[in-house]
């Protein structure tokens, strides 16, 4: 600070800094600010909850049929819904779950891997959509078996694809940055 102008600038700068800190700190407590401020995090949370509710509502008939033990009808319901929502990951996931129960393992694994590719929430510990409890034992059960089968049938393209899907699921279950 060499002259009065420098001092003036310094004081104004300090005032700016105090004002910014004060304003930032005050946004949480000022009612008017709270009303006006765009809480993107809240909006994002609402959008996510809405999506989860939407999926629950859209696929409720499928879940209902599954609860009644009607897996075959549930698959038909999924076929019907896939006309309306062809790119929705949740349909892929449910199809994978049902096919797994019906014993069509390769197709089930393919649908589950596709679902995870489309929406990582299914391997997420914190998501209400998480299916880690389904995928973890599936990997433990199938990976070694499919690896062996693929080695025994090196020309089998479907087995190779299934193995690739299993490795993908294994990698996603292992975590890491996305």
């Amino acid at each position, binding site marked *: 600070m060499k002259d009065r102008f420098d001092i003036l600038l310094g004081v104004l700068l300090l005032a700016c800094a105090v004002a910014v*800190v004060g304003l*930032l*700190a005050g*946004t*949480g407590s000022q009612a008017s600010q709270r009303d006006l*401020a*765009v*809480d*993107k*995090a*809240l909006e*994002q*949370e609402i959008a*996510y909850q809405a999506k989860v509710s939407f999926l629950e509502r859209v696929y409720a008939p499928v879940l209902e049929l599954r609860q009644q033990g009607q897996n075959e009808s549930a698959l038909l319901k999924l076929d019907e819904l896939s006309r309306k929502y062809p790119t929705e990951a949740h349909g892929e996931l449910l199809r994978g779950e049902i096919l797994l129960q019906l014993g069509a393992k390769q197709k089930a694994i393919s649908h589950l891997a596709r679902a995870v*590719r489309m929406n*990582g*929430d299914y391997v*997420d510990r*914190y*998501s209400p959509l998480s299916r880690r409890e389904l995928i973890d034992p599936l990997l433990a059960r199938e990976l070694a078996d499919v690896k062996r089968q693929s080695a025994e049938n090196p020309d089998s393209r479907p087995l190779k694809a299934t193995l690739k899907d299993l*490795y*993908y699921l*294994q*990698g*996603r*279950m*292992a*975590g*890491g*940055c*996305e």
Partner: protein
Amino acid sequence: MRLALRDPHTWLVMLAGGLLGLAGVLLALLGNPQNSGICVSCFLENSAGALGLHDNARMQYLRPELIGFVLGSTLAAVGFREFTSKGGSAPLPRLLSGVFLIIGCSVFIGCPIKLFLRLAAGDLTTLTGLLGLVGGVWLGLKGLAAGVDLGRAKKQRDGSGLWTPLLFVLLLLFLFVRPGFVLFSERGSAAEAAPLLIALGIGLLLGAIAQRTRFCVTGGLRDLMIMGLRAPLFWGFMVFVLVAFTVGLATGTFKPGFYGQPGAHLDLLWSFFGMLLVGSVSVLIGGCPFRQLIKAGEGDADAGLVVIGMFLGAGLVQAWQIAGTAAGVPVYGKIAVVLGLAFILLNLLFFRERAAA
């Protein structure tokens, strides 16, 4: 000549490498994503998302480590009277270099530090990335030897070097005040985080020690190629890898193999090209992404521009589907890497000082 073992600086560099390796594994154990205890590009992608530069709701978190790296460097530089504002060397190419650094990293899934953390954890898919990084450093060095020079940075008035640290002070403020426009993921890899104060503390410590030692992963490889085994940075780098490997082994996170590795893909060729881009850009602009943060912290406005470019790139790789995922490298990622390689080749052409015929 031999490694100067009596020089305390050599030991300091090795200490820096050791701490980086230790922190890299420990931060993952404390909550950061697996094999991503320290990853500058991942942290930048998370932070860019937190600031609204992309809308991937699974990749939004202001990583405290990142803030710590810059501010730790600033504190060390000020404390040891090394804070100097300098800049003015090819600003726009540096800004774009920052963008392409993150493009290369995101296609590989990780910065050079993460490459070695992944490798030390047994992830063999990184091997082509390693080859690419070495190739990139070699290409960059060839360029420098052939007369490529972005121009010397000039000492500037004190203010210009302050802006990057000030930006990170603002981010630090955001981290604690959490205004409504800053986003924090509640799911996905960005929701996996070490406790805030521990992460910040480790970031500050690593930032400070990296400022004192000039620690840099690509710098270690570069010095090895120039100076051979007497290069302290190379030994620091080796200690980093060794410590990460040993701690990983001791804590049970070492799982060797090609398949099922966390945050990895099997597009090995594109891992190679991604890291080739990172290696060559790093040598041309004088350091890997981590080193750019440290330099920006000590007043280097040119590095500050690289950091801004990295933030921009971090937003773009997510918004434009450039970043590689466990499913592989998207076509836009491949195109972006090829454009990045063209960018580096053009710069090698444009900035080459040719001897008069």
